[in-house]
């Protein structure tokens, strides 16, 4: 073949390839279904946060079925349009652009977690649409976007509000010194910063303040280093891997800290709870919903969770078997949007945002009101202490008495005792 032909071939091939790539992308435009109201979102269905993402998605499907049974939004049926963001923020802007421009969704809500909400913010702001957030930590602090609302019940200053109740709960130990440890990851670092603020307010001396990398396999050296500082309390902001590793390391090395835990993500998940079993006893941690009798202030939550658990069983889903952690919240952030849209009576994002700002909603997570930056006006993270765990049987965690509520005072079902007294 001559050189000329070769280069000709190349350019033809390149052009053909470009054309193919372009047409492949453009043919994605679906047939418009004018009738349904479409709610679009990205969700972590694979990757590090997939455990939470899948759980949230099932709850959202339950909400969709509920609202459709009740006649839908604005009298139209609701359809969920979602894509897997692979727990990678990089995929998020493209997904939301696709949802808004190609799928022509009527509303967008966020995926699960701070890191995956952040890259969607500018897209929402750019289109000036209402944006509901699911478990985002301070996502709107820089943007101050008036149409963003977030369901994590951590109060107006989420980083601080998240651990506020925990620090109130430990006052009973009259601590003087505190050790702080956090995972080297976005959410956990924010939690620890908030905890430092609370610790300083309370006048505790910080004797240890470190971060651990997410890939850490053995936590015993860290626990020993903390013990060497003899802290009265040990605040941990960790991700699931680390939470499990730390619980075990503490069980093995022991500690004299009176309170251990605080912001340990993952201890609310079925797999870890069952796997860790009795090693959890004594841990004092945050939570959002536990099967204690006083949680009746969340109307319909326990029925919702029961439906979710049945769904997991009957459909053979590979998601969290219990669903306490995210199900009510993933349901609620859609529910609030649905209520607002139906109250406004039309798709008018300005009016809907205004309505959400001025209304106190009642949903499966109780009464919700949004303040500045779309955060909750009050903090309602609850503090639980693990106790009476006998074995690795999962069903015990569905019963009251295992994760007793220590704070807030109005719903408490127990009082915190020192870590070692429950071992």
């Amino acid at each position, binding site marked *: 073949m001559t050189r000329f032909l070769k280069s000709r071939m190349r350019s033809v091939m390149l052009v053909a390839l470009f054309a193919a790539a372009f047409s492949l992308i453009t043919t994605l435009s679906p047939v418009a279904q004018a009738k349904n109201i479409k709610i679009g979102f990205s969700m972590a269905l*694979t990757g590090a946060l997939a455990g939470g993402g899948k759980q949230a998605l099932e709850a959202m499907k339950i909400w969709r079925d509920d609202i459709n049974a009740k006649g839908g939004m604005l009298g139209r049926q609701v359809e969920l349009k979602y894509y897997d963001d692979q727990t990678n923020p990089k995929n998020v802007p493209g997904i939301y652009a696709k949802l808004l421009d190609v799928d022509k969704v009527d509303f967008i809500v966020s995926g699960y977690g701070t890191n995956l909400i952040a890259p969607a913010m500018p897209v929402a702001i750019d289109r000036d649409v209402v944006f509901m957030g699911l478990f985002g930590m301070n996502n709107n602090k820089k943007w101050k976007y008036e149409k963003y609302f977030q369901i994590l019940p951590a109060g107006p200053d989420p980083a601080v509000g998240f651990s506020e109740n925990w620090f109130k709960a430990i006052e009973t130990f009259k601590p003087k010194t505190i050790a702080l440890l956090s995972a080297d990851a976005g959410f956990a670092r924010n939690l620890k910063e908030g905890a430092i603020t609370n610790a300083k307010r309370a006048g505790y001396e910080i004797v240890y303040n470190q971060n651990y990398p997410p*890939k850490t396999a053995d936590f015993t050296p860290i626990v*020993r280093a903390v013990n060497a500082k003899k802290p009265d309390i040990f605040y941990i902001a960790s991700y699931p891997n680390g939470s499990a590793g730390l619980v075990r390391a503490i069980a*093995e090395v022991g500690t004299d800290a009176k309170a251990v835990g605080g912001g340990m993500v993952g201890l609310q998940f*079925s797999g870890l709870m069952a*796997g860790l079993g009795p090693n959890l006893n004594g841990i004092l941690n945050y939570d959002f919903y536990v099967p204690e009798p006083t949680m009746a202030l969340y109307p319909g939550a326990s029925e919702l969770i029961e439906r979710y658990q049945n769904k997991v069983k009957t459909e053979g889903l*590979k998601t969290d078997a219990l669903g306490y952690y995210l199900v009510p919240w993933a349901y609620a952030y859609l529910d609030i949007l649905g209520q607002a849209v139906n109250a406004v009576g039309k798709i008018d994002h300005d009016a809907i945002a205004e309505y959400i700002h001025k209304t106190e909603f009642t949903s499966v997570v109780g009464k919700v009101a949004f303040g500045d930056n779309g955060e909750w006006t009050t903090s309602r993270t609850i503090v639980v202490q693990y106790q009476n765990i006998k074995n690795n049987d999962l069903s015990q965690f569905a019963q009251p008495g295992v994760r007793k509520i220590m704070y807030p005072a109005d719903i408490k079902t127990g009082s915190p005792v020192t870590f070692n007294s429950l071992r």
Partner: protein
Amino acid sequence: MEFTELLLNAIVAGILLGGFFAALSIGLSICFGLLDTVNIAHPTIIVGAAFCTFLLNDLLGIDPILAGLILTPVFFILGLAIYSMYYQFFEKQSAEALRGLAFFFGLLFIAEVLMIMAFGVDHRLVSAPYIGNSFTTALAGMEFSIPYRLLAAFVVASAMTVGLQVYLSKSFFGRATSAVHQDGMALSLMGVDPVMVKRIAFALGLATCGLAGALMIIVIPIEPAVGRFFIGNVFAIVVLGGLGSISGTLVAAFILGIAESVVSTFFGPSWAPAVSFAILLGVLAFKPTGLFGSGDTR
């Protein structure tokens, strides 16, 4: 006194952690160090074994380490299958290592997806009497607490390494493996089929995944993507130890384990990965073949 106690505890913990690292790396030391197959999917295959261990433990109540032993022949057969495929498409055509790397990346993704479909994405743990307890002893006025689960990892990994080392250096097959690493031609002249030797050696490398998987789920909670966490570690260990040296791999695993543990104790855990990999870079800068590597750099 307190400092000494902390330091000694950190070193002990580091050796135990090193044992765990060694268990993850030893199979790769054969596949990559001796056979030049860049099996980037190795940690992910270990996660697969860990999930199998979980099943055996959860459904049948089998002790995890026993489950690991049961899985060993299964992974041996898997190794035979993977190598046959690899040989067919790459080795036979003497393709560059780069192509093999892409192949194993593909394998990694497929394995992850299969695990997600079979087990979901939630974290899994196993229970056994030796998990969550530790052996505590006082020595010269200092207290040592040794978690049984890490001790188990250490003992099993050491036994595995010593066993493999003895097997590879003493048996005919083992010497054939080393020979195939240096000169495949000479081996065929001796009347041994080099492909067969490589296939069995690769399968042997994968067979270690059975036990390594059991140890993994004993030491850490697992989920399908957790294998990616260890890609850097296992390759660093094999290279640090020197390609082709099984005992070098063990020593390198101890070095990284101790480094991580000591740094975690005294300088803050978040610097641990930088220190571990800086050790690797430093060693490579001065001794390009790793600690126990032979002269040739490929």
